[in-house]
């Protein structure tokens, strides 16, 4: 990069300054990221053994158990069920959110469409509302006693829908995440769209392409890298789902304390006091996220950038 050339040429290239400047971030990173991660991996290899009645100091000792905690986590049926629930939730959430974000971004990019400024702000607005507050608001909109939707259905004498039922809850949770995330993803895709040279569309229009064809054949293929990036972030966020089910739980019996893997980690660590199992499960979740992230990024490189390089 140019910066390397410039500072190399100066002769009196600053040696210590850059280290001093990055030092605060590096120290914080080590304290807040590296040390806790290392500690988690360490904990995941141990277990407490109780001697006698387990009373008094020294009656509990940490013993090394190797990968045993991992084996237990992998064969834990509740964890597996939680992972499946998150997959089901993600299967509803990610395509819906990105599909809507893509449609809205394409519409924002269309000159004939009216009220674009208003719609852009309105759709992006939920991004500024905390997930817990969003869950709480939607919770009241779902709750049969306060739901305007059920009120409408009652007035039309149609059967009421309980989205807080064990099946409905998937949609209820996914809807909260779609509501909060669609605007952000729309903005990412929209700004990517704005950077495509306009004369590409002009050429297509002269060739007789309809706006729909321009969108399908030019815009969407050029958006591929941005779409992969938004998918990646959405999938990571999906796997980390925690605040929505925790915040909705007081309103329904459909959400157990271990509904998602992260809720189980929390429950293991603070509910049951078994930090060792919690640590092993955390490491497994982190591993899955790394595999997905790198897999998707590799896929982007080969698919989206492969042709250009």
């Amino acid at each position, binding site marked *: 990069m140019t910066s390397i050339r410039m500072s190399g040429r*100066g002769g009196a290239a*600053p040696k210590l300054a850059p280290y001093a400047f990055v030092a605060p*971030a590096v120290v914080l990173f080590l304290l*807040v990221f590296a040390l806790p991660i290392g500690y988690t991996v360490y904990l995941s290899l141990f277990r407490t053994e109780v001697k006698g009645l387990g009373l008094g100091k020294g009656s509990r000792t940490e013993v090394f158990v190797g990968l045993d905690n991992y084996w237990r986590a992998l064969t834990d049926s509740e964890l597996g069920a939680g992972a499946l629930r998150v997959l089901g939730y993600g299967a509803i959430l990610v395509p819906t959110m990105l599909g809507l974000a893509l449609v809205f971004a394409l*519409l924002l990019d269309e000159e004939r469409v009216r009220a674009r400024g208003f719609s852009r702000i309105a759709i992006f607005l939920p991004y500024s509302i905390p997930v817990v507050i969003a869950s709480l608001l939607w919770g009241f909109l779902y709750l049969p006693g306060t739901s305007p939707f059920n009120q409408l259905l009652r007035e039309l004498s149609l059967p009421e829908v309980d989205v807080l039922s064990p099946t409905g809850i998937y949609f209820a949770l996914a809807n909260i995440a779609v*509501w909060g995330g669609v605007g952000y993803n729309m903005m990412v895709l929209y700004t990517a769209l704005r950077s495509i040279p306009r004369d590409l569309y002009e050429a297509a229009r002269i060739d*007789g392409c309809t706006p729909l064809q321009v969108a399908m054949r030019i815009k969407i293929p050029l958006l591929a890298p941005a779409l992969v990036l938004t998918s990646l972030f959405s999938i990571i966020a999906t796997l980390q789902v925690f605040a929505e089910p925790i915040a909705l739980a007081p309103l329904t019996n459909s959400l157990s304390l271990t509904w998602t893997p992260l809720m189980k980690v929390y429950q293991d660590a603070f509910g049951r006091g078994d930090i060792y199992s919690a640590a092993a499960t955390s490491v497994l979740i*982190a591993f899955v996220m790394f595999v997905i992230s790198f897999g998707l990024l590799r896929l982007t490189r080969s698919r989206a950038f492969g042709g250009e390089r």
Partner: protein
Amino acid sequence: MSAVLVQDRAVTPTPRPPRVRSIVSALGALPTFVLLLGAVYCLFPVAWVLVAATKSSGELFSTSTLSLGSSLVANLGELATYRDGVFWQWMANSALYAGVGALLSAVVSGVTGYALAKYAFRGRALIFNALIAGVLVPAVVLAIPQYLLLSKVGLTDTYLSVLLPSVISPYGIYLARIYAAASVPEDVVEAARTDGASELRILTSIALPMMVPGLVTVFLFQFVSIWNNFMLPYIMLGDDKLFPVTMGLYTMLKQGNTTPALYTLVVTGALVSVLPLIALFLTLQRYWRIDLLSGAVKA
């Protein structure tokens, strides 16, 4: 051949019969309609909370959802006096966590981003990659051991336990680095160096001022993300005097199971708590620079 045909069509459009024309114009309004539908969907819960906050606890469950109630003032008063005004304490805590955390985060990100963008030094790539990998680590993987480690030094259940982990932001450093590379010209830095300015002086009086718009963006993103963070305070804090407003409202919602009258307060509290965020969002709109992110997508 087809090119000639197409061009011909473009120059002299065939006149359409009136009925087809009205269908076409109806279809022309469809995109606007779809976009407005999206806007309505996104504004609906906000509109609902505005209406619901005006209702007394009885009205919340009995009256038509979208008709205004009569007790907004009473609700606000009750919220303000709930447990000796703990709600305002929560709001102040949120402002403290998000304000101070985001400010420190913007400064740290700015300095780090500038160093990573403008200096060549051994370990630069390693430091950058390690910081960026931090984005991928799930919050809970960090929060639980952070809690355990902080409890060893007696720092859990303090303001610091929520503030400290919020200062470092891999995303902020990433944005600041892109922004520094784009907004601080090499020759200005080089000229200052030739004039004998120290590196610290170049940083504080040349580079950082040039990076201010980018740092405002970092501040905003970090402010919202700290204000929204639920897991960290949920794990770190036990004393409800230290709760941010999200945690406070959540605990009220939980108690609402046994005392439904609290639901009214939760709704009113939710409204009051999102107002500053919405105000911040609308007034500082031009700093929501998503293009920094998508710029990186293209690179």
